Each structure stands twice: as C-alpha cells, then as structure tokens.
C-alpha cells in the first residue's frame, strides 16, 4: 500500500475509535453477529488487496480485535539515477548506441528529428523497466512485432543506474534472441561483481507502476481523452486505486458472501416448501428444524444421517408391521374348525347319557360297594330289600361303576376338547396387530374389508365363548361348537384375503414413502454443507459491511487529502506554463466514483468559471497534462530520481516552451530530468534563458547508424562542424571547400537570430511575432535585424561590419559566396573570422 495513503488511513481509523460504524441491520437468515468486530482491520487488509483481505477473513478470530499496525515512517528510499542507456538493434537504432547521462539531478535534453532514433532510447528504457510502453500497449500485433531494427540482427537494450548507497550501481538489460519475440526476452539485472538476477529481484515493480517516471507524447496527448483513465493514473500513483480496489474487493467479498447465503436461502425455501407437502413424517421433523432462525443445520444433518426418531418412525413402523402381516393360516384355521367339530360330535354322541348323573351314580355305587365290602351280604341299606347286596350284586355293580365312570369321562373330555378349540379359535385373531390396524386408516390404507372380515370372525367366536361360559344357546349339546366352527370356517377365507390385501397395500405405501423421502433426504444432506459454508462466510458480513461503509464514507476525504499536494503542485506548474493563456487553473481534484470518476479541473477563463478542456488549445492541454505528470512523477516516496519525458513540446507554442523550460529546470534541481524532443525549440529556450542543461543531438544515418553528440548552441555547433570538416581527412579537400563556408554562414545566421530573439522577446514581443519576422528575414536583412532591429537597413550592414572589424565584411561575403561554389584560401582562418563575426553579432542585441 502507498505509505502516504496508509498513513492517512491509519490516522483516520485511529480517530474512529474501537467502536466503529454501527453494524448493518441483520437480514433474514444471517448468522447472528451483532458486532462488526475487526472491521478496521478489514479496511487495511482490503487496501493491501484481494489476497490480504481473503487472508484476514479466513482467520476471523484473528481479524477481530487485532491491533492496527503502527503509522509507517515517512518514506526514506534510496534514490535511483540513470547513468547510461544502451540500445542495439531496437526500433530506430541499429548498431549499439549509448546515451551517457550525468547520474544526478539536472536537465538533459536529447534533441533529434523524428525518426532519428532518440525516442528509441526512451522506449528502450521504458520497456526495460516496465516491460511495456505506453505507445505500444494498445497497438496491434503488427506494431508490436515491428520493433526490431532491420539493420542489426542482434537486439539488446540496457541501462546503467546509479543507486544511492550502492557505489557500484547496477545494470538492467534485456537481450532478445534472434527471431525472438519482444515479450519473450527476460529483463535481467546485475550489480557489479554479483550474479545476474531477474529484474524482479530489484523489487522495483510496485514503485514503477505507482510513480512511472515516463511520459511520452502519446500519453501527453491522450491524458484527457478518457477522464476515467487520467483519474486512474493519478489515483494509481497516490495509491488511490488501492482505495478504489479496496472498495471493490470489499464489495465483491460482500456480494459473494451474500450471494452464497441467498442461494442457500433460496434452496432452503424450496426444500422447506417441499418438506411441507411431503407425506413422510420425517419431513415434518426436518421442516421444524429448518424453520429455525439458524436453519438447525447441525441437528438436521445428524437427524438425516441417523435413524428416524420413534415418533417419526411410528408411521413407518405401522406400515412395516402391516406389510409383514400374515393372517391365520388355512391349516391352523382348519385345525381349529376340525377340533370344534370333533368336540361337537363327541358332545352330541354323549347326549342323553346323563353324564352328570352317571358320575353321581357311580359315586353312590362306589359307596355301596365300599359298604358291602365292610358289612358283607345283606339287605339294601337304602331301600332295605333283603338279600339285595351280595357277591353277584357286587360284581355287577362294580362293572356298572366302571361303565358309568367311562361315560362321564368321555363327556368331560369332549368338553375339554371343545374348550381348547374355542381357545384356539380365539387365538386365531389374537395375533392381529390391532393398534396397527386402527392406525392403518390414518396412513391412507383401506381397512374396511379387513375390519368386516375381522368382525365376521369375532361374531363367529361369540357363540363359542358363550358356550364356554356355560351359557347354552342350543338345545342339543355341542351344536354351538358346530355352528361356531362353520361360521369361523366361512369367515377365515375372507379374513385371510383381506389381510393379504392390506399387507400388500402397506408394502406399497412403505415403498412409496421411502421412494419419496430418500431423494429429498439426500438433497437435504447435499444442501447442508454448502449452507453451512454460506452461513459461516456470512458471519463476517457485518464486519465487511462496516469496512465498506467506512471506506465509502471516507473515500472522498481520503482522496482529497492524498491528492492535495499534487493538485497544488499542478496549479503552480500551470501558472508557469500558462503564460499568455487566459485559462486560470483554480483547483485540481479527483471526483466521483466508479464510471463517474474523473479528474476535475476547475478553471476560470478570464475570471469566469468554465470547463477546462473545452476552452483549451491542444498546447494548453499538453501543458496541463505535464502539470499533472510532473508532480506525480516527483512524489517524495518514489525512488526514481529520474524522469523521462518524450517530446513534450510538440504542439506547444513558443511562449509556452519558455515556461516549460523553466519548469523543467526547476524540477531538475532535485531530479534528473531527461527530455527527448524532436526540434530545437526547447533547447533554444534553455540556451536563451541561460538554464543549466546538457543537450545532446541525435542523428540517424543510413543503416540505422545513430549518433549521439553533445550539442552546443547552434552557433558553436555550426562553427564546430565547420572546423571539423576543415580539418578532416574523411572528406576530399575540394568537398570541404564546398561545405565549410555554408556551415559558417549558418553560424552567423544563428547568431543573428539569437540577437533578434533576445532583444525582441526581452522587451515583451510575442514569440510568434518574433518567429514570423525571423522566418522571412534572410541574408543581409537578417543581419540588419540583428544590428539595427530593422530589416530595411540591409544596405547599411556591410559598412557597419567593416567599421566594427576589417575582417567581418570579408567573412560575411566569403560565407555567402562559398555557399554556392568552391572557395580558396586558408579554411581555418576563414572559419575563425566567421566565428568572431558570429560571436559579435550574437552579443549585438
């Protein structure tokens, strides 16, 4: 995070106190977390980025109550200066060409025609450091692929840096394989005497993206094309994009969590509705749990994975019992019926044998026989008839007693058999699950037939029970049993059928319920983990919302506070660049959010508020862009003490170039300012204003041979060229004699122009007007302008020259004539005379 921004954020968070903003009202289905603890920590984490926020949220306990970090120390970064840029086989540069720079604060101008290869240095440096350049960023593949110089197969770009505290400095280089792509090469870094490392090891990446020390013409021109882009670029340097990104990640985090919760809730509502209409009793239980505020997820999960509870199980148990239902078998019914019938037959057969009487008579005879045994033969002890009891009587009565007792026993056994059969008949129905049958109706089973069959059976049993209780319902003994047996035999068939039918229906119902429940149960089980996650993630929502709310409420103030120094500096730069512009820049502020974010330039035109860009010329717009670039690239937090500006003067009128030269020179007091420019205006301005600057001229010969040469002012340059050619053995002497006078004349012309410009601009003439006069004046008229400030006095020039110095007139004429024909004489002597003339002219203002 941008340290300055972090400082501002922390100060404001500290001022906020522990309580923080009040938590957002809870929404339905949200986990209870009344307190938004740790929200302030989330603000910081979100500012660090998505991953940091995710990390903070993954350990919620850590987020809550975690102490905020201390205020960061003011940035103390070692400054980085450029020492040399080397380019080979890249863009306009063929063989290796070096641009030497003084690694310290100061202004360097690199002047060269368009196509001279000068911008290749700027682009190479930008590519080295950022892996891309503004110019190429959005270009087509064709453009990106045309980076190789056709004249040099080997491609390599490198830059030497001086770093404070690292005396050896370091070299960043990128070597492109032959035929390799621009992006394919890797950028490497080497400190002297150390192993080569990947560029990333320097750790410059963040700083480069924050304080990108490059400004190209294309960027300058497009600065205001997209209000959001400019906003973003400024926001980026100030770390304000982190602020925006923080809001975004917080919002995303919130949305993702809310969405997950909402989806879980939608699924829950659907399941809830399905459970409501589900016949299974387990559904009711699940539904009761789901209805709870926390959805009873844990319980529900346990329940679904465990067996059904007894209450829920009842219905299923009844169904299972009924499904297993078996009626009395045909055999057992047959046995009971047979038994009843046998008993009935026996009882019928014993009918009239007066079994009771037989028993009593047998007992009586037994007593009489025991009496006879005791008293011997004699009269009947009952009726007194004499001789009634004797041996014969004894024998006959003994036999009768046996017979009587046998008859009595057969009746008793028939009765007992009858009673057993009645019991067995009763037992036939005793095994029926009466309770289950009673509930079967409630489970949607038809039990009418069965109940009728059961009733028929029960009514068949009633006379049997009555018989057993001794209540005779029929005259003939055993007839009740026979009738009961018949009724039972008749009722048993329908009962069995009804039971089979019910069991079948129960089995079907059971299957149906399982079939209906199991998928629903499975879906519930599948839904639960996601729902648990959603609820767990939603528990952080209050803190996230609090963090987002704070960020939202503070965003504007944070931006304003962070941007204020930049806005002030931009205004002061604009003051120097505006010169005759009637546009007064009153304030620069970052406004709006999302798609409405923009840099608001509050301007006044001739004192009246206006919209900046609409009223500004292209040159003014560029100046304004520069006003914004310089402060952003010279932030104290930036380790880059150099800044590279590619062609800032295009479409800037000459007056503004003076302002620019001053602004650049001022910036160069603390920074290494390297300006590439396609014409001599800035250099001229720097020279005329006597600003400190190193000036290089870049020329590109055929075969992409690029030459970098220190460039003095035009007079010295032309005289220097003339001397070089006068002395060189690289040119035939006859050719030198053709060229040297022309160069000397250029020196004199340049000197005259300097004089005119110094005088007229010095007294307040408009640059454009001075320029127009100079464009038209040539030859003696130009010299007349320099000498007399009057081009009409060309006729007086030679006199004036000769009066000043005898050689001046000759020098002028030699130059003029030699520009068209070969001259004779001592070249160097003539050059010296011309130089003297030029120097005198330049001072004549």
């Amino acid at each position, binding site marked *: 995070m941008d340290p300055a921004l972090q400082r501002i954020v922390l100060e404001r968070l500290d001022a906020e106190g522990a309580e923080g903003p009040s938590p957002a009202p809870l929404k339905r289905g949200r986990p209870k977390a009344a307190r938004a603890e740790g929200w302030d920590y989330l603000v910081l984490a979100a500012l660090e980025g998505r991953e940091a926020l995710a990390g903070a949220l993954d350990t919620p306990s850590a987020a809550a109550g975690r102490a905020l970090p201390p205020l960061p120390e003011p940035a103390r970064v070692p400054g980085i200066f450029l020492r040399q840029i080397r380019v080979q086989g890249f863009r306009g540069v063929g*063989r290796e060409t070096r641009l030497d720079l003084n690694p310290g604060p100061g202004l360097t101008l690199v002047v060269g025609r368009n*196509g001279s290869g000068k911008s290749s240095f700027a682009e190479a440096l930008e590519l080295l450091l950022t892996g891309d350049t503004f110019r190429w960023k959005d270009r087509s593949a064709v453009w990106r692929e045309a980076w190789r110089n056709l004249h040099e197969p080997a491609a390599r770009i490198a830059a030497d840096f001086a770093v404070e505290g690292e005396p050896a400095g370091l070299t960043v280089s990128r070597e492109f394989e032959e035929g390799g792509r621009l992006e394919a090469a890797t950028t490497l870094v080497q400190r002297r005497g150390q192993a080569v490392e990947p560029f990333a090891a320097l750790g410059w990446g963040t700083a480069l993206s924050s304080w990108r020390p490059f400004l190209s013409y294309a960027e300058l021109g497009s600065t205001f094309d997209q209000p959001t882009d400019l906003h973003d670029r400024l926001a980026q340097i100030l770390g304000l994009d982190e602020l925006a990104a923080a809001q975004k990640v917080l919002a995303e985090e919130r949305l993702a969590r809310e969405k997950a919760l909402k989806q879980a809730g939608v699924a829950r509502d659907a399941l809830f509705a399905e459970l409501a209409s589900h016949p299974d009793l387990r559904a009711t239980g699940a539904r009761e749990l789901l209805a709870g505020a926390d959805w009873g997820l844990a319980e529900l999960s346990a329940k679904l994975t465990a067996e059904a509870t007894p209450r829920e199980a009842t219905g299923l148990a009844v169904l299972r019992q009924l499904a297993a239902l078996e009626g009395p078998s045909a055999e057992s019914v047959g046995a009971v019926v047979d038994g009843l019938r046998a008993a009935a037959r026996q009882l019928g057969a014993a009918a009239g044998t007066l079994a009771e009487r037989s028993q009593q008579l047998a007992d009586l005879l037994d007593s009489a026989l025991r009496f006879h045994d005791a008293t011997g033969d004699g009269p009947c002890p009952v009726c007194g008839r004499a001789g009634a009891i004797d041996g014969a009587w004894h024998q006959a009565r003994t036999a009768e007693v046996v017979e009587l007792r046998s008859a009595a026993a057969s009746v008793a056994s028939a009765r007992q058999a009858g009673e057993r059969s009645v019991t067995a008949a009763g037992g036939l129905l005793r095994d029926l699950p009466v309770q289950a049958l009673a509930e079967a109706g409630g489970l949607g089973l038809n039990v009418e037939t069965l109940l009728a069959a059961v009733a028929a059976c029960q009514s068949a049993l009633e006379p049997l029970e009555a018989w057993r209780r001794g209540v005779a319902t029929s005259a003939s003994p055993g007839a009740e049993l026979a009738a009961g047996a018949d009724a039972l035999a008749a009722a048993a068939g329908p009962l069995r059928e009804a039971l089979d039918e019910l069991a079948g229906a129960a089995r079907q119902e059971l299957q149906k319920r399982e079939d209906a429940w199991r998928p629903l149960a499975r879906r519930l089980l599948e839904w639960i983990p996601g729902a648990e996650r959603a609820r767990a993630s939603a528990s952080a929502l209050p803190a996230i919302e609090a963090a987002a709310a704070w960020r939202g409420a503070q965003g504007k103030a944070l931006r304003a506070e962070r941007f204020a120094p930049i806005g002030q500096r931009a205004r002061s730069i604009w003051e120097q660049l505006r010169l005759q512009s009637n546009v007064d820049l009153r304030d620069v502020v970052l406004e709006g959010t999302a798609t409405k974010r923009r840099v608001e330039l509050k301007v006044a035109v001739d004192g009246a508020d206006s919209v900046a860009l609409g009223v500004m010329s292209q040159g003014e717009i560029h100046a304004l862009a520069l006003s914004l670039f310089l402060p952003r690239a010279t932030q104290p937090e930036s380790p880059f003490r150099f800044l590279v500006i590619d062609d800032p003067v295009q479409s800037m009128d000459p007056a503004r170039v003076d302002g620019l030269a001053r602004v650049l020179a001022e910036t160069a007091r603390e920074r290494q300012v390297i300006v590439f420019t396609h014409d001599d205006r800035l250099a001229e301005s720097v020279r005329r204003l006597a600003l400190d600057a190193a000036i290089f001229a870049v020329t590109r010969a055929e075969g992409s041979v690029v030459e970098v040469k220190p460039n003095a002012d035009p007079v010295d340059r032309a005289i220097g060229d003339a001397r070089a050619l006068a002395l060189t053995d690289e040119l035939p002497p*006859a050719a030198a004699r053709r060229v040297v006078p022309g160069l000397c004349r250029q020196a004199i012309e340049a000197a005259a122009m300097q004089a005119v410009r110094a005088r007229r601009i010095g007294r307040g003439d408009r640059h454009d007007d001075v320029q127009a006069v100079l*464009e038209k004046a040539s030859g003696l008229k130009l010299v007349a302008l320099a000498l007399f400030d009057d081009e009409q006095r060309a006729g007086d020039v030679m006199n004036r020259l000769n009066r000043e110095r005898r050689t001046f007139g000759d020098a002028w004429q030699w130059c003029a004539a030699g520009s068209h024909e070969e001259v004779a004489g001592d070249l160097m002597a003539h050059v010296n005379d011309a130089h003297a003339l030029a120097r005198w002219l330049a001072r004549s203002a």
Partner: protein
Amino acid sequence: MSGASEVRFLLDTARDLLARPRRGDLAGTWPRACALLIRQALEAALDRYWRARGLALHECSARAQWICLAEYERSDPESATALSGTWHALSRACHHHAYELAPTAAELRGWLEVVERWHSRTAG
C-alpha cells in the same frame, strides 16, 4: 573542375557521406554537409544545363531560373517541379532556421536521388 565532372564529384561525395557510417569528426556533422553538397551539385547541374544551351541564366535569381527550367523542360514538367522543390528544401536545410534540426538521412537520400536522376539524364 567544372561541368559534369563537378556535379559528379559533388554527388559522389554526398552519396559517400550518406552511405558510410562515420565516427569522430563527422559524427552528427554529415547531414548539413551533405545538404550543402547536394545543393551545390544541383546548382552546378543547373548552371551546366544553361551553359549547354548557350544561355546566360546563371546570373539570374534562383527563382527565375526554376521558372525558366519549367519552360525548357515542358516535356517533363514533373521533373522540373521536383527539382525546384528539392532546391527549395535544400536551401532551407542549408540556412539556419530557428528550432530546425539537421535533415534526416531519408530526406537527404530523396534529394540526392532527384538530382542524380536529372543529372544522369541531362549529362548523357
């Protein structure tokens, strides 16, 4: 040295300056020197052209000469226009102009070719 050989010498020197990479003395110097040579080649060629036709036009102003050339070269007006344009561009490059930098190699190459073509056509 005069006439065709003079033109040839100037053009050859200019081409040599343009084609041969240089270090040292001539680094950065050659574009202006080259422009001066081409202009003189063009002027010499024009001079030769008039002399060959027995015309004493070389004393006239450059502007007058280019107007006349257009008349004489009516069969090839494009060539005359190109020559006149080249001469004006060369003249601009040969004088000091505020803020202007030395001509580029491509510009010089273009001018050289215009003069070369005309010279080889008229010298033959």
